[in-house]
């Protein structure tokens, strides 16, 4: 499941090779190598948090930059959790800095989101639109657990909150999402093509 359908569409699974292909130009260190391996997972996480893939790529870039800047602070264990914590904080800060709710046009979001999917683009749009309606903290919790497979304890560590808060956020996420998706089913989305 870690690999998307695009890999098959390639017919070669060569994407993974790409990432490892050019660690030569200024990114040869062990830390960089380890970070590079984590990029696909960080990309999925960032895309699952943001309204558009473009926003997700931006968040990913910020995350990697921050990780490189703070490499001295990494204690040498669990780079994945460490980088996920960084991204989680960056995401949270973005939302705090922003006016209440982000105002990215939904149409734009859909346009970008649908460009490289081999699955049902409507379904992805539907899910993403529903997730956009969740509070960012609630969305973060749900994505860490559901998409990234973290345990509740690990998710609590990454978000730096008590585990009880993880549970209540998860509960709210699922409740709200059920309502949002049920509503969505009544009004079929149709995109002009």
């Amino acid at each position, binding site marked *: 499941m870690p690999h998307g359908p695009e890999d098959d569409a390639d017919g070669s699974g060569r994407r993974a090779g790409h990432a490892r292909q050019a660690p030569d*130009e200024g990114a040869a260190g062990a830390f960089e190598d380890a970070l590079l391996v984590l990029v696909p997972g960080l990309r999925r996480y960032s895309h699952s948090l943001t309204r558009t893939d473009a926003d997700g790529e931006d968040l*990913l870039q910020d995350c990697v930059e921050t990780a490189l800047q703070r490499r001295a602070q990494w204690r040498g264990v669990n780079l994945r959790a460490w980088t996920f914590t960084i991204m989680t904080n960056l995401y949270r800060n973005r939302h705090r800095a922003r006016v209440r709710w982000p105002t990215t046009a939904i149409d734009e979001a859909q346009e970008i989101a649908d460009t490289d999917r081999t699955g049902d683009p409507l379904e992805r749009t539907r899910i993403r639109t529903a997730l956009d309606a969740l509070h960012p903290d609630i969305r973060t919790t749900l994505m860490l657990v559901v998409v990234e497979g973290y345990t509740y304890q690990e998710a609590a560590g990454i978000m730096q909150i008590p585990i009880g808060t993880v549970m209540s956020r998860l509960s709210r996420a699922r409740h709200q999402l059920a309502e949002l998706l049920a509503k969505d089913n009544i009004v079929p989305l149709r995109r002009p093509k």
Partner: protein
Amino acid sequence: MNEGKATVGENDLHAYVDGLLDDGRRAEVEAWLEAHPQEAERVAGWWSQNERIRDAFAGDYIARIDDPDLLRPDGSPSAVAGHRARIARIGLAAAATLLIFAAGFGTGRMLPAGTVPAAGASDTSLAAEARSAFLIYTSEVRHPVEVGADQQEHLAAWLGKRLDYRLRVPDLSSLGYALVGGRLVPVAGKPGALLMYQNPAGQRLTMMIGRNDENSETSFRLDVQAPLRTFYWIDGPIGYAVTGEISADALRAVADECYRQMEEA
């Protein structure tokens, strides 16, 4: 945590759906759910949510060829790369590239003749080239081309001469794309032509054309290198690729149109 059938709580149900219970506890929860159909229905809904969310983002777990650029520290050439990536992203949101490439296929570096392309290094270099061209030229605002559409005849003659091929510049106006112009580009170390198109919305397509010394034929092939798609084909001495950040159908329509016009030429 709670224990016993009667004490299954909300947290247990979440942990059940998230696969975080051990076998014993899971069996208990399942037994409890059988006795509580209403709760079971709710839990089934969560289960379905999980599946849909995972499916929605499964395709985002990908490495991209320019990922190493992310890791270049500021100040080195990387600042430029990062800057370029940002610009490219802005471009990508609105731009599509149509690349028609062709060139040294006969060297075996790019595509094996007439067969399904092999995985691995041979295709990697091709995809890399297409991607570079996309990143570099579609994000160019001021000088996207060397010769503009106003000199279309000169453009065709000039690039055709370098390619040693009677280049016909496809007319994509039926698909809403007007010619911006073209430039000479290296493709697999040989002269190739890059043509660029743009629609009224500012979305760009570029097309790369180059030589195929092997003189082989292939059908249309699709290469997906998120977020880009490439349709490519080899037609005798010339190879073509169209790459775009547009739907496969839309890109296919462009490729079909190009193919049709090339055939007429």
